[in-house]
Structures are given as C-alpha cells and as structure tokens.
C-alpha cells in the first residue's frame, strides 16, 4: 500500500527533488511536475492522495487552475507552498478547502504533518464517496422495482432480448454510456475522456434522444 500518492508541483527543481526524496523516505510515492501543463496532465491521468503545489509559477499555474480541477472533481487534498503569501490567496485557499498554506521557507516537519493530514482526508473522502455510491445504487434499484406502468414491477428487460439497441450511438456516446453504467458522474467522465463536462452532458442528451429515454435512471434501467 505505502503511505499514499503525492503530486509535487513547483518550478524550482531543487525544491522538487529534495521534497520528493524526503517524502519518499517517509513512505510516500511521489510524482513531480514543473509547470502548469505537467500538473494538469498528471491530475487528469492519475489519482493522488495529496497535491503539494506552488501557486506562482512562470506559466501562471495558480489557484484558479486548482479551482478548475476541483470543479471537475479531481483535486486531491491540497497543500499550498508559496514564497509570496498574501491574504487574498489565503482566503481563496480556505474556499478550496486547502489543507495547509505554508510560506517558504518552512520547516520540513510542517510539510510532513500537512501531507499526513491531506492523505487522511483523502481516505475519508473516498469512504464518503463509496457510501454515496451505495446509496445511489439503492435508489436505482428501487426505481427499477417501481417499474414503469407498462411492465410488472421488479421485472427486468429479460423478455426484450439484450435491451435497447446501442448501434445507433457513436463510439463516443457508447463510451459515455458505459461510464454511466459504471456509476461515474459527469465530472469524472469528463476527466477520463478529456472532455469538458458540458460536452459530456451534450453526449448524454443525444443518447437520451436516440434511445427515447428521459433520464439517466431510465437509461440505466433500460440497460440493465
């Protein structure tokens, strides 16, 4: 298992390597990114238990970017490290539920403690997401049990062959449908397929139209 997966984002190479080495010694696995593109790519591709990030880099990686990843549901618990502390970024950091805001130079033990808190928070968040997913499953199960009036309650689409015909869908639309079946939410699908949430929603709408359903629940019930 190890202690957790940490992404370090800083344009300062010395900071990156020394911090990564130090955290590795404490049992964490570290990934590093030196610029905004690297950081964004890593956040989209991988899942981390904590992000340690500078918020002032030459290519303008800042709290606004963090907000974007947060909106997409893929911002891990975050620790801000900065040589330019300011009230306004600290206030924004509160809103982003940043775990800690450390002013460079800081005591390394402060960072280690903050990373420990971040990883613990990630673990709690995962537990909550699982609980929510279980609740959503139950909701769907009940919807199916309620059934639509034309079909006896509790019966599946057994006598209708393999369910709705997906051949009218584009490849992309099928990918979205499969992701929905796996219980992913729009923001997560957008992250995985490298699309904006808006685009994903449009795909979903087209799928509804093509299959003649009116909601995600109806769609999933059809596919069951």
């Amino acid at each position: 298992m190890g202690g957790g997966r940490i992404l370090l984002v800083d344009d300062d190479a010395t900071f990156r390597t020394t911090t990564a080495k130090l955290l590795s010694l404490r049992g964490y696995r570290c990934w590093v990114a030196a610029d905004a593109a690297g950081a964004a790519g890593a956040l989209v591709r991988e899942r981390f238990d904590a992000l340690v990030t500078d918020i002032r880099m030459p290519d303008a990686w800042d709290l606004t970017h963090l907000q974007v990843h947060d909106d997409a549901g893929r911002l891990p618990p975050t620790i801000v490290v900065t040589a330019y502390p300011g009230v306004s970024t600290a206030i924004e950091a509160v809103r982003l539920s940043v775990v800690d805001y450390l002013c460079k130079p800081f005591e390394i033990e402060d960072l280690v403690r903050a990373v420990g808190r971040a990883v613990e928070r990630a673990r709690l968040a995962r537990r909550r997401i699982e609980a929510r997913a279980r609740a959503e499953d139950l909701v769907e199960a009940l919807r199916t049990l309620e059934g639509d009036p034309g079909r006896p309650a509790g019966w599946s689409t057994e006598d209708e062959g393999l369910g709705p015909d997906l051949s009218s869908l584009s490849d992309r639309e099928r990918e979205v449908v499969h992701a929905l079946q796996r219980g992913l939410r729009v923001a997560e699908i957008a992250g995985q397929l490298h699309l904006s949430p808006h685009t994903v929603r449009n795909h979903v709408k087209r799928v509804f139209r093509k299959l003649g359903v009116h909601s995600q629940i109806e769609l999933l019930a059809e596919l069951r």
Partner: protein
Amino acid sequence: MSVLLAEDEESVGRTTVALFHGAGHRCEWVRTARDVLSALDTGAHEVLVTDIRMPGGDDLRYLAEVRRRAPDVPVIVVTGYPTLPSAIAALRLDVLEYLVKPVDFGVLRASVEEALLLRRAGARLQELAASLARLAPQMQAQAAEPALSEARGLLADIQSDLARLRLRPLRWAGQGGRRGG
C-alpha cells in the same frame, strides 16, 4: 435549522438575524466569544457564523477552541479585518468559508445552506440507504402501497440531497464526516 451568529456590531447583528429569519432559518445571536462557547455547549446549533474579533477573545485561540468544543459544527468566518495569519489559521481549522465584510447576504446564505447540507448529508444518506434496503424486499414482495409511498418520499429526499451535493464535492473534512461516514 438553527444558525448561531456571533457578531458584536449591533447593527450588523440585527440586520443579519432579520435576514436569516426572512430566509426561513432560525438564528440565535450572541455578542461575545464566551457566549458562543456556552451556546455551542448546548448542542442546539447546526452551523456557526462568526466574526473573529470580538470582546473576550484572541481571534485565533477563539477559533481553535470553537473547533475543539464543537467539531461537528461547520464554521463560517466573517471579518472586517482579513489578515494572513487568521486566514491560514481558518483553513488549518477546516473553516468552510472566510468572508470579508461587508458580506452580501446572498453569499452568506448560500454558504450557510451548504454548511447545513454538508453537516446533515453523511448521516442522512446512510440513514436513507438503510431504510431503502429495508423497504426494497417488501416492495418486491408487492407488500403494497404504504412501503411504496414511504420509499417514494425517501427517494425524493435522497435525490435532492445528491443533486445538491454534486454542486460541490464532499471536501469538507469536519469531524462530522468521521462519525457519520
């Protein structure tokens, strides 16, 4: 719904209480740090909206004490004197929002409602999930209308909770989460 408002400025306090009442929230108003702590001890409040410069308290110690005594109560800080140390202390203490005066009531209200939702959501979802699990077999056995209508009610509740929570991920790591989830 009950909001605890800590505000030592008379006019701000009066207006804010009136606005909360107008928005359909019960709101108790106290004026000193000591009164906040004793009000929290009653356990009657679901969210704290607090100034951090009040008579009878060092801002940061006060905030830490609030979190220690009532870890399940989400805190929204409202201040006319934003500072770097207090903002950093606020985020370390898992404060939900740090708002700078003058605060638009719409913003405050939205923050409070989100805080209430977060506080209730975890426990509530589990409770609903348990009820749904209990009801499902009855429904399958066609045991009828009462179970069905109870389930429909729960379904509506749980769905509106889920829909609203999706607006902001469940990031808040208050102690409530530990207990509830």
